[in-house]
């Protein structure tokens, strides 16, 4: 990897890292897990695909990230099964999330605007969290990242027909869930 490539990769990752984090956070609902997934995706891209041309990095990075998210879902499903079993066994329900850690730094926004943002964001995030994984992915890639159907299909490793179906279902589900905001 040449120094020019390193600089180009640094620019590319700096450009996508925040959106990648939000995408991972929508999927995991966990700050730490989202950060881990983004870091893993960055590492994989740099190690495996640094020699590819720059215009390929975008789809490859999101493909890697989606794979990491999918693996995370599988691991979490297994862990939750075990945790549920152990919880029933011990009859001990501990909430592992620390409420103080969940509070985000608000920056310089006023309290009224922040309240509105909080309300809307909360509703939106809830609706996005409630979407099935594939619909969630396709919505974020198509609507937010603005990817074409073909590129989304490449990232999600499915057919273009599946992308269209998932997207249509995602819109329908969001419309139902966000009735108040859907005007």
């Amino acid at each position, binding site marked *: 990897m040449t120094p020019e490539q390193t600089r180009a990769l640094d620019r590319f990752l700096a450009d996508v*890292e925040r959106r990648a984090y939000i995408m991972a956070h929508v999927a995991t609902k966990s700050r730490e897990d989202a950060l881990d997934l983004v870091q893993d995706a960055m590492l994989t891209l740099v190690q495996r695909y640094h020699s590819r041309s720059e215009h390929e990095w975008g789809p490859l990075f999101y493909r890697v990230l989606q794979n990491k998210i999918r693996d995370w879902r599988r691991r979490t499903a297994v862990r939750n099964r075990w945790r549920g079993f152990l919880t029933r066994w011990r009859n001990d329900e501990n909430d592992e999330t620390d409420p103080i850690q969940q509070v985000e730094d608000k920056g310089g926004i006023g309290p009224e605007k922040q309240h509105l943002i909080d309300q809307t964001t909360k509703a939106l995030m809830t609706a996005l969290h409630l979407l099935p994984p594939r619909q969630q992915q396709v919505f974020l890639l198509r609507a937010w990242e603005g990817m074409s159907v073909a590129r989304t299909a490449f990232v999600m490793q499915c057919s273009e027909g599946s992308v269209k179906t998932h997207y249509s279902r995602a*819109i329908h589900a969001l419309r139902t869930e966000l009735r108040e905001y859907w005007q």
Partner: protein
Amino acid sequence: MKPGNKDKSAVNKIINELNEGVEHLDAGVERSLRQARAHALQQADKRRNFFSPSGRQWVPAASGLAALFLVFLTVGLWLHGSAPPSLQTTPSEIDYLDIIVDGDNPDLYQDIEFYQWLAHEDQSG
């Protein structure tokens, strides 16, 4: 199914909210992302240095070890090496070969050990 105007406007709202989320990431997350990026690039540099011509510091060491191994191998063979097996055959082996090839009077040859013993007894007796 393509979203209608109402859907488009609602989708835009959602996108705006997501963009707001990106704009207002808390400082801790931003710092972690920067660190993750630096770490990823650093790892790639490490790998590059290991295989790149400037970073092949392991090559002289590996060559030295290989040379040392060859010296040990040569000395070991020289000290403990046995002479190559002789290709010379003993007369008795040739005799047996002749018997097998000729195939005449096989009974005599089958009892040859007996006749040899008899001769030996005569000489000693």
